[in-house]
C-alpha cells in the first residue's frame, strides 16, 4: 500500500473474468503519519481505508470486466463489517466478486482476510461511466501495469 497516494492495493494476484472475481494482495505499511493519529500509541489501519481497499479491489474487477473501456466510481457501501483490528505490517488478501452488472452501475461483494481470517467485508455500489478523457485512461493503464493487472487477459478473453 502507498497510503500517501491513496493506493491501497499492491498487486493483482488472481483475476477470473469467467467467474467475475478478483483477488489482490495488500500489505499495510509499517509506518505512516496516518498511524500517528489513528491512534497515538496504538496504530490501527482505519476502517474506512479497509472499505476503500475493498472498493479499489472491486474497481479493478469492473475495469477488467468492461475491458478497460469504463471507469468505476465508488457510490455506496452497505453491510460494511470491520471484524478485527488490522495493524501495521500485516499482509492482507482482498477478494471481490461481481454481484450485478447493471446499465451504468455495478454491485460487488468484497472480503479482506489476514492470515486466512476474515477481518472485513462489505457490499459496494459503483457508477460505471466512460473514461472522462483519454489522459485519465492512460494514467489508469499505467497504474494497472504497476499492480500486475493482466492486460493480456483482456485481449485473449
Amino acid at each position, binding site marked *: 500500500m502507498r497510503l500517501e497516494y491513496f493506493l491501497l492495493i499492491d498487486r493483482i494476484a488472481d483475476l477470473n473474468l469467467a467467474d467475475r472475481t478478483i483477488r489482490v494482495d495488500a500489505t499495510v505499511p509499517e509506518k505512516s503519519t496516518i498511524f500517528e493519529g489513528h491512534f497515538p500509541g496504538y496504530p490501527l489501519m482505519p476502517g474506512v481505508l479497509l472499505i476503500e481497499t475493498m472498493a479499489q479491489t472491486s474497481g479493478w474487477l469492473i475495469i477488467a470486466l468492461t475491458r478497460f473501456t469504463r471507469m468505476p466510481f465508488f457510490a*455506496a457501501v452497505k453491510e460494511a463489517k470491520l471484524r478485527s483490528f488490522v495493524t501495521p505490517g500485516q499482509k492482507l488478501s482482498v477478494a471481490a466478486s461481481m454481484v450485478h452488472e*447493471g*446499465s*451504468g452501475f455495478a*454491485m460487488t461483494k468484497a472480503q479482506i482476510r489476514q492470515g486466512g481470517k476474515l477481518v472485513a467485508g462489505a457490499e459496494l*455500489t459503483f457508477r460505471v461511466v466512460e473514461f472522462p478523457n483519454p489522459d485519465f485512461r492512460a494514467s489508469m493503464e499505467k497504474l494497472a501495469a504497476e499492480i500486475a493487472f493482466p492486460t493480456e487477459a483482456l485481449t485473449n478473453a
Partner: protein
Amino acid sequence: MASTFDTVANIISETCDIERDKITPESHAIDDLGIDSLDFLDIAFAIDKAFGIKLPLEQWTQEVNDGKASTEQYFVLKNLCARIDDLIAAKGATA
C-alpha cells in the same frame, strides 16, 4: 401472480422505506416519491434481478439529457412498468 406494478411498488417500498399505499401507477419516482439517482440504482438492481432484465438506465438518462424524452416517460411508474414488460417480452422473443 403479482403484476409488474405490484412487484415494482413493493421493491420501491422496501428499498426506499416508502409507505406502500403512497406508491401508485401515476407516481413519478423522482418528483413524487423523492427517489434520487443513487437510490434508483438499488431499485434498478432489484428490478433487474426480479424480472431477469437489464433496465437501460444509461440510454434513458441520455435521452432525457438530450431532450429526446421526458422523465415522465421512464419514471412515472405505469410507464416504467410498461418498459419493464417490453423488456421481458423482448427477452422472451430472443430466448
